[in-house]
Every structure is written in C-alpha cells, then in structure tokens.
C-alpha cells in the first residue's frame, strides 16, 4: 500500500477556537485526525466547565487556586531544566 498525503481542511472559526484554547492544529494534525478531534473536544469542554462555574457566580478559593498554579509552574520549570540537562 502506498503512503498518501492526507489533506485536512478546517474553517477559520475552528482555527481561532483551537488557538484560543492553546491547541496547535498544525502540529496535532500530524498525529492523526482522531486525536485532534478528541483533544480539541476535551479542551472545549474544560473551557465550558470553567465558564459555567464563573457564570453561575462560582467563587474560587484563592489559596487552592494559587497552590494549583504553583504546582503547574514548578512542573514547567522542572521539565525545562531536565530537557536542557539531557
């Protein structure tokens, strides 16, 4: 079986939506259409859940939010250091 090129066409709205959610469609398309769709759907759902919480007047616990952001910042930093060391 020969290997063929697959062309993916997306409209501007989807491109803008993906970009706003931090999804790189060009990179993701190289991995396969199913994963692109799944990743984008999950990110849209996550954004929707956060928006719903805020629209409903939900109040974040500042300490918990700060702790979560601290952990994630540490992870970004640690992975960057380890990659350079490797």
């Amino acid at each position, binding site marked *: 079986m020969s290997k063929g090129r697959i062309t993916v066409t997306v409209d501007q709205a989807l491109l803008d939506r993906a970009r706003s959610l*931090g*999804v*790189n469609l060009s990179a*993701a398309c190289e*991995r396969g259409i199913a*994963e692109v769709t*799944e*990743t984008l759907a*999950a*990110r849209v*759902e*996550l*954004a929707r*859940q*956060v928006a719903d*919480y805020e629209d409903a007047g*939900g109040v*974040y*616990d500042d300490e*918990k*939010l700060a*702790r*979560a*952001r601290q*952990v*994630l*910042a*540490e*992870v*970004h930093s*640690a*992975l960057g250091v*380890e*990659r350079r*060391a*490797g």
Partner: protein
Amino acid sequence: MPVCILDSTALDELSAPEWRRALLDAGFDLVVPTVVLAERSTGRAQDQQLRAALRATRRPPLDEAGAHAAGALRHAVVPTRRRAPSAVDAVVVAAADELARRDDVLVLTSDVADFEALRAHAANGRRIAVRRP
C-alpha cells in the same frame, strides 16, 4: 501542548474548580487512561461528579502493546521495592511514557513514591514530571 495524566487520586482534584481553572490556564491536555476508572467508578448515582469531570479529558483505552509496556515497567521496579506498584499505576506511567515521546508530561498523583519508581524505568522519563496535586 503539555499533557497532564491523572491517576485515580488526582481525579478527585479535577472535580475542584480551582484545578480545572489552573490546568486550562496552563494549557495542559488532560488525559485519564480508561483503566483508572476501574478504581473510581461505583456504578451509582454518586458518579455524576466524576462523569462531569471526565468530559474535560481524553480517555485512551489500554491496548495490548500498552499492557506489555506496563508489565515491563512493573517488573523492572519489583526488585527495588518492598511491594510491587499496582498494575493500574504501571499502566498510567506506561501511557505517560508513550505520550512523552512527543510532549512534556505531568503525572498528578497522591502516590508520588510508586510513580517515581516507575518513571525511573521509563524510556522517556526525563520528559515526565510526577507531582502531588
């Protein structure tokens, strides 16, 4: 995009709006290997919150290659630990290892010691970070 894999203990955290907000802001792609659900689902109405949180995740199934990879990791850890890590934990790290071939991966778990032991034997362990939520 960095990937965040959650084990069953971290799934509880995902139900907290603070963690959903922070993970979204940080741009993580959320992944829950389906085998993890066997540790959290009860089949009862109380699963409603769990199901809502799961909608924001990707949930890759366990295939044969993944099962073999998990078994190899678990076997490699056995001589160094008083007890072997659970098969589910090994599957989570094997999934992280596969994703780490092309992305940075964060594993969120309350059982850091077992996961670090497994990560040490992962081929792409340098691109995996294990943290407690």
